[in-house]
Structure formats: structure tokens, C-alpha cells
């Protein structure tokens, strides 16, 4: 058992590390790890050569044990001020079979153990039938480092400043002039969450890079009750984002809250009517459209899923012959164009390099309604090689490799998605005005979810508020409504999209894998109008 370090020793070594520590000095203080020196040393910043030494130790051990390819990630995750966890994960390839080993210990001995164990895992399975992996080529990054730019790093802030702002939002709602307008007005949920991750990646191809990434998310939801009716609404811009405290501070919070209350007041003036089952042209606000895009096309275009690699878990894809359908399958109407990236500032999937050391590119998933590509990593991009060559596209991974921490093996996860807005400058209300007789679905800044089937084919949408639209105006709120749809028909019936100024970005998580793992990405979408969507009463039995 190691002796306890004295304060003096700790301070001495901390000062040496402080030069590179910057923002971390305000955080409690760094954890210690054994880097191969005489004893415990202060944890240096992720760019320190000692971290690279550790990483290369794992690569070396993997190669010696027989891996044809190996990569290692070391991650250090800071969760608000309440937790810090460190992990290391080594992935190796032997005769087309993957092996993986992970633990929380950052020491040279453990790097060797993990390298050997990962190869042991791969070799054991390589005893079976042959399997080939066509790894699309990359230019390995040599010693890259990237710190995600944020305006205000919450880890450098006094927690009292955060608490003061969150409290002030609650006090604002308690103002008499707002309270008077309702029978009851109260805060349902309020909170701010933030994490930072430092990650080092090394591969046997000579690649090495380190990154520091941030993610913030917040929630502020208010419940208003009047005349026996109630409405819950929230600030729409607090969904997860790759940002710091600017998640709140970039907005005029007082104005936003005032607007929120005004809208709630107006909504409660609308009469409530029961569901009239039928098919209606339907306008959805940006949040609904974004989540709908994600849970239909976002899931269906994961190439590994479409080929059956998630069949025992979340399911497969309605794009059920991916190699045959890419380039020709009509996913939606002409107005539908979807692109993907891992580069937009603030996007939850944004990184400089993915978890295979690939620099992600911006790519097209759907163009004018036609499926043009899939979400890929180095191995899966190889499955589309013939298509890429035929279309004279680069044969490369789009950089979708991701995992929550180094403790989980990398999988192909959804990148940031963008539904291109319409050319005309129309907002949600303008789209509503185009409907003589239809439905409008609004999220009011609250959680949206769709119940999809295991091929992302049919879905049920019950969240949000449904409104009856007559002659371009929302005339009543519909009690207990839901929409039933089939993805291809829904997107082929895309009638109109909001203009560029109406596009909004939302951060969301997606899970896959066995065991299950979740990562975050963002989806940007404008409000949209869909043709003849089926409206039902979800509680009506057969």
C-alpha cells in the first residue's frame, strides 16, 4: 500500500503541471496516475507526452501479441463537480476478428495486460470461420491536439454563479404580474448539467491525437393551470449541446421567459376538443421534425444496423437492402435533403477526430429524396466500396466511430444531422396559414419522443400538443391525440419546409450495442408540413 503523499510533495508536482493545466486549476485538483516513475505522479493534461507513452505501451503489447491492427483510447471524464472517472480501452484486430479489453487503471503494466487481453479475445474468435475486414485507408494524425472552443467553461466558474442564475429564473416565474395570469404557475423542472472529457487516441498505424470535449444540457419547464386546463412549456434552447455556460448566457433569458409565459397564456385560451380520427395535412414544429428525422432516417441509415448487426438488439432498418438501395432508393419527397457532419460548432457529435482517428467529413445522406450514402466507420465504409468507386466518391469512413468512454468499445453512432430548410422564408405560423383543414403539432419546448418499431418503419407519435387547424389558424387543442405513420410514406409526403431562419438544433442521445451504450448528437431541422398523416386516439382499443 502506497504511503500517503505529503502536501508539500503534492504542491511541488502540481505547480510543475500547472503550466499546462489552465482551466483545471480551479477544479478540485487532478487525479493521480502511475506513469512508470517512482510512484504516483500528478495527472498531467491530456497532451502531455507521458499519456502518449502509456498509449503506445498498449499498442506495442497488442502488436507483440499478434494484432494486425490495434487502437487505444484513454478517457478522463469530469461530471460536473461530483465525479471523475478514468478509463482505458484497447481494441485489436486479428485475422478479421475484433477483441476489446478495458479497465480504469492508467499504468504501464495495465496497458500491457489490456493489449494482451484484447488480442486474446480476438484470437479466440478467429478460430472460427474466416472473416475479412476491409479497412478504408486514412492518413494517421501525428500528434494532433484539439480543445473544443467554448465561451465559458463551467468548470472554471464559481458554482454560486450558476446557482444564482438558475434561482433567478425561478424567482422570475414567481413575479405577481405573471402569477396573476394563471390559477397556478410553477416551475416543473430546472437544472443544468455539464461534462468534460479528455481523450487520447493512438493506433498501430502511427496515429496519435488528443482532444478535450464539452457537453452541457439544461432544462427549465413551467406548468400553468387555468380553468381546469394545464400546459407545460419549457425553454427550447436548453437541449444538450457541445457548449459551456453560453447554453444559457447566449440568450436573453428574461425575454425568453416572458415569451414563454405569453404563449402559455394564449394556449390556455384555446378550447379543448376530442380526437376526430382521420387523415390530415400536419404541420410540425422544428423540435418535432428534428426528433422525427432522427428516429426514422437517423436510425435507418446506420449501415451496420441496416445490414443486421443490431438485429438482436434495437433491430434492423426498413432500408433493408442497403447495398442495393444506396444511390436509388426514394427515402422521401424532392424537398428532403439531409446531410451529416461532426464539425458544426455546438453539435453534440462534433469532434476533430473520431474514435478511429478519422477526420470526419460532411456528407450527404439524402439528396432530393434519394438515399445517397450511409453512416460509416472504417470497416463499414469498406462494404460500400463498389458504390463509392462507381460514383467517383472517396472510399473513406465518414468518421462515425464513437463511444461514451474508453470503457466501451467503439461503434458507429449517429453524427450531427441537418435537414436542409426550404428556400422560402416561412416560419411555423406561415406554414400553419397554408392549411385550410389540418393539424399542428407543437412541442412547447418539452421532451419529444416517437415509438418506432424495430425497423424504424412504423411509428406512433404521442408527445407534444396537437391542434386543430381551420383556415390557416389553430382553433382548438385536441385532447388525447397521437399520430400513426410509416416512414417512407411520411417523408414522401413532405409538402413544405420552414425557411433558413426557422431551423433549430436539438441535442439528443441514441443507444445501440450489446451491452447497450449511448452517445449524443445533434439534429437541426426547420418546421415542416406532411401530407395526410393519420390521427388516432392512442387509448382506443380494438
Amino acid at each position, binding site marked *: 500500500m*502506497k504511503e500517503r503523499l505529503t502536501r508539500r510533495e*503534492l504542491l511541488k508536482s502540481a505547480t510543475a503541471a500547472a503550466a499546462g493545466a489552465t482551466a483545471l486549476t480551479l477544479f478540485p485538483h487532478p*487525479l*493521480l*496516475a*502511475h506513469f512508470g516513475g517512482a510512484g*504516483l505522479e500528478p495527472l498531467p493534461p491530456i497532451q502531455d507526452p507521458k499519456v502518449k507513452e502509456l498509449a503506445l505501451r498498449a499498442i506495442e503489447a497488442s502488436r507483440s501479441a499478434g494484432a494486425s491492427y490495434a487502437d487505444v483510447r484513454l478517457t478522463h471524464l469530469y461530471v460536473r*463537480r*461530483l*465525479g*471523475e*472517472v*478514468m*478509463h482505458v*480501452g484497447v481494441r485489436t484486430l486479428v485475422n478479421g476478428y475484433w*477483441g*476489446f*479489453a*478495458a*479497465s*480504469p*487503471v492508467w*499504468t504501464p503494466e*495495465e496497458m500491457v*495486460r489490456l493489449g494482451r*487481453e*484484447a488480442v486474446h*479475445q*480476438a484470437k*479466440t*474468435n478467429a*478460430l*472460427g*470461420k474466416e*472473416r475479412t475486414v476491409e479497412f478504408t485507408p486514412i492518413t494517421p494524425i501525428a500528434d494532433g491536439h484539439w480543445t473544443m472552443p467554448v465561451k465559458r467553461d463551467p468548470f472554471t466558474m464559481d*458554482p454560486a454563479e450558476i*446557482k444564482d442564475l438558475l434561482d433567478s429564473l425561478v424567482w422570475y416565474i414567481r413575479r405577481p404580474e405573471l402569477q396573476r395570469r394563471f390559477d397556478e404557475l410553477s416551475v416543473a423542472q430546472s437544472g443544468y448539467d455539464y461534462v468534460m472529457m479528455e481523450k487520447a487516441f493512438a493506433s498501430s498505424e502511427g496515429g496519435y491525437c488528443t482532444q478535450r470535449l464539452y457537453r452541457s444540457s439544461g432544462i427549465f419547464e413551467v406548468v400553468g393551470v387555468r380553468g381546469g386546463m394545464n400546459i407545460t412549456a419549457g425553454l427550447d434552447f436548453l437541449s444538450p449541446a457541445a457548449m459551456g455556460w453560453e447554453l444559457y448566457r447566449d440568450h436573453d433569458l428574461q425575454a425568453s421567459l416572458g415569451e414563454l409565459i405569453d404563449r402559455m397564456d394564449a394556449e390556455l385560451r384555446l378550447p379543448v376538443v376530442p380526437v376526430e380520427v382521420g387523415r390530415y395535412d400536419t404541420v410540425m414544429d422544428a423540435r418535432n421534425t428534428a426528433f422525427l428525422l432522427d428516429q426514422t432516417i437517423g436510425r435507418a441509415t446506420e449501415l451496420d444496423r441496416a*445490414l*443486421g*448487426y*443490431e*438485429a*438482436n438488439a434495437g*433491430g434492423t432498418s426498413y432500408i*433493408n*437492402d442497403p447495398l442495393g438501395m444506396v444511390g436509388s432508393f426514394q427515402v422521401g419527397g424532392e424537398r428532403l435533403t439531409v446531410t451529416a457532419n461532426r464539425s458544426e460548432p455546438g453539435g453534440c457529435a462534433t469532434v476533430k477526430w473520431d474514435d478511429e482517428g478519422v477526420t470526419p467529413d460532411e456528407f450527404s445522406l439524402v439528396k432530393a429524396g434519394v438515399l445517397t450514402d450511409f453512416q460509416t466507420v472504417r470497416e463499414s465504409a469498406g462494404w460500400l466500396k463498389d458504390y463509392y468507386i462507381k460514383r467517383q466518391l472517396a472510399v473513406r469512413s465518414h468518421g462515425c466511430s464513437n463511444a461514451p468512454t474508453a470503457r466501451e*468499445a467503439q461503434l458507429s453512432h449517429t453524427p450531427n444531422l441537418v435537414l436542409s430548410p426550404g428556400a422560402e422564408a416561412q416560419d411555423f405560423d406561415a406554414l400553419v396559414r397554408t392549411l385550410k383543414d389540418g393539424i399542428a403539432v407543437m412541442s412547447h419546448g418539452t421532451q419529444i419522443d416517437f*415509438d*418506432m*418499431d*424495430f425497423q424504424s*418503419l*412504423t411509428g406512433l407519435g404521442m408527445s407534444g400538443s396537437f391542434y386543430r387547424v381551420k383556415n390557416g389558424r389553430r382553433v382548438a387543442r385536441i385532447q388525447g391525440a397521437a399520430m400513426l405513420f410509416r416512414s417512407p410514406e411520411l417523408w414522401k409526403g413532405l409538402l413544405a419546409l420552414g425557411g433558413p431562419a426557422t431551423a433549430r438544433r436539438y441535442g439528443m442521445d441514441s443507444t445501440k450495442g*450489446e451491452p*447497450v451504450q449511448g452517445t449524443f448528437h445533434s439534429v437541426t431541422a426547420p418546421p415542416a408540413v406532411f401530407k395526410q398523416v393519420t390521427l*388516432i386516439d*392512442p*387509448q382506443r*382499443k*380494438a
Partner: protein
Amino acid sequence: MTRSADDARLLSAADCDALVARIERLARGGGATECDIISWWTGELRWGRNRVTLGSDRRDVSVGVHRRLPGRFGEAIARTNQLDDVSLEATVRAAERSHAEALPNAELSFEPPQPPLPVPSPAIWSDSTFNLTTEARGEVARAVIAPAEAQGLLSAGYVEVLAMSFWHVANRERRYDRFTQTQCSMTVRDSQGMGSGWAGLSSYDWTKIDPSALAERALQKCVASRNPVALEPGRYTVILEPQAVADLLEVFVGSFGRDTPAELGGGPFALSRNEALQIWHSKLGLKVIDERLTLSHNPADPQLGILPEPGQQSVTWIENGVLTNLAYSRNYALEKMLEDFPVRSPHVSYRLSGGQTSVEEMIATTKRGLLVTRFWGIRDPLDGKSLLTTGLTRDGLWLVENGKITKPVKNFRFTESPLFVLNQVEQLGVPVPVFRPGQMWNITPAVVPPLKARDFSFTSMADAI
């Protein structure tokens, strides 16, 4: 402290005691310090399209430091997975700093100790699970994939063995518990995507799992499910295999654990409100489901063992259809001076009694009905009182006509209440363990019978396969 020896996959009781001693010495500012220490190891094997896609060996620890400062409500918890002195100290300080911001609690300077509640010691450790080697897992995958591949079908699946140690304080006593958990499941699909079959099982003991039998079942279901026909949604007699029953009952058993309790007017077991007494009457003592059904939990039964918590005890929730027990929070029980009560817990493991009728016999005695393998996509109930729920059938649905399976059917979305189904039971079979692996330490085994029920409501077609 490094743990790089391969056989030290878990922290021992002595390791944990030493850790806790170090943590307690680091506390500043008085009050109380408690810890919870989890260590775990998993061996995982996943395959898709008839080839193993990943074999893994992973481990981690989690140390939770609970600090309760004098003069503040509640406690604050900070976590780390690093076991060196400075990391532990940083974690203790983080918890103290966080609790210092909690609401002041000047009035209750003395909190009377909670009366002790029994804590079970479930015997859910299996050496067979803990020692299922990487090589053995590889053999399992090869044996399971081969028959599907031989028939030109595509197999995808997953095998996992998990071992976990859990050090915590219960009734002011220090406890160290270990348990194992294992699961094996697979989906066999037609290469054109025209059929899909599934089979799976979870247990604490690997010897209870027969991967070849599961593989055969998934294969047979895939072949039998090809080219399904569309049927009209409507009400059908259903024969639910045990897995389907367990899937459907998730929201029902949740009423005993997670959901708004009956004493506050929530859930399906609240009866009516007595305004004069200002209390909610519950359905205790009333018949709520079929009289052949008894729903119970015994934490000492290895088939039902879960992570031990104070207040977990052998309990019969429903006896011969009559609601016999409800779970309460400790505070409510103290208030009402209840003795010997089941404590509310989000982890609900259960055994549902059954009968003797086999699934084959249920089919043979059905004029017209649907045989269901499993349900999927069931989330929170649409209505908390009736437990009306929606979800989908998956991986095998067949039409039964005049005592025989006649054709595979396209999947349906259903809108039905498990409470309703358990009141429409015609036949019951022998209860068996099902696939309910939970996640990490949220193990929730269940032993469930197959059953036949009338008038099950399928509301729309979901032609996903």
C-alpha cells in the same frame, strides 16, 4: 492502488474495508460519512451475420462517498473510480462542497435512527458463470451460429457473463455481497429479411442456460415466420409464450415498485378517496386478477435473487387473485406505524404462478387465435389507473385455427392492459425463468408461465419484420 493481476477481477471484502477506512479518515467538517463500493467484471461476445463481431473483457470500479454534514438536509454523493489517496480525497471534498450547498436543516439537529429492516443474503453467485472462459464463450458462439449458417440464414446474438461485488452499509452494518449474472440471446433472420425468430434466457447461473436449445428455437421460429400475411387488427384470443407474458407484465409489476403509490391515489391499486379521513383507500383485500394467479417474490430463492436492499423480504403481492400486499416507502410506513412491511424498490423481481397446460395444448384447444413469441417497445403506460399500454409483437407471430398453427402473421401494434389480460385468462402453463437481464446491477429475474387469454386488442399493423 493498482489492480493489474488478472485474477483480481473484483475487489475483495478486505479491499473494500481498507478503502472505507482510508475514506473515513479523509472526512472534514463532522457529520457522517458512508460509502458504497462497486466493482464489476464482464466477459462479452457479440455476433452478427454469422460472425463474431466483438469479444470483450471489461472491468471497472465505482466508489461513492456519501457525506452528510451537520445542519444540512440529506446527503451529497460524489463518485470516482480511482483508488489512490489524492483521488479519494478529492472525491470526499467534492461531496462536502456539494452538501455545503444543500438546504439548511437547523431544526432537526437530532435525527432518530431508522428502525432496522431485514436485509436478505441472496445466494446468486455461480462459479460456472464466473469461470466461463473466453474460449468457452467462443465455443458457444460457434455452436450457435453453425446451424443457422448451414441453412442459409443469418444469426445475430450476444452472450455475457457478469460478476459484481457490492460493499455497502445496511442497518448500520457493513455488508459485502457478490453476485453473478449471465445472458444468452439470439435472433435468426431470413437473408431476404422475410422472417425473424428469437430466443433468449438470463440467469445468475450459466449451467441453467442451454445455448443449443435456444439456437434451435430461434432457428425454428425464423423458418416458421417467413413471408407473413397481413391480418386485420382487432381483438384476438392470444397464446402468450412466457417471454411475451413477462414483457407485457413489466408495467404491471412496476406498480409494486416504481410508480406513484396507492396510498397517494396513484396507480392501479388505488380505490377511492375518503374525504372525511383524507386518505385513499386501496384495493387491498379485493380480487384484482384471475384467482388462479399468485404473484410473489422471495429474495432467498436463487431464481429470483436481486441486489439486496433493506426491507426486501419474502412477499406475496397477490394471492389467488386477491391483492394481499403493497410496498411502502420507509417514511410512509413510519408515519402509519406499519410493522413488517415490504419496502418500495424500483427493482421488482417476481414469480407468477401458473398451471399445467402446455403451449401445445393451448394451441390444440384454440379455434382462432394468435401465438406470440414476445412483445417489444413497451414504455410507460398510457393510463396509470388501467395500465393501458401500447407496444409491438416481434420475432414470431402465428395464426392458430382449429387447433393448428396455420400461417405466420405480420406484426401488430397492440393497445391493451396487462390488468385486463390477467382477468381474461383461459389457460395457464408451467412457470419458467425468462430473459430479463436488466442492466448491470439492476438484475430483475422473473419466473413466468405461458397463458392463453381472450379478447386481446391489436390496434394496427406494424409490418416491420
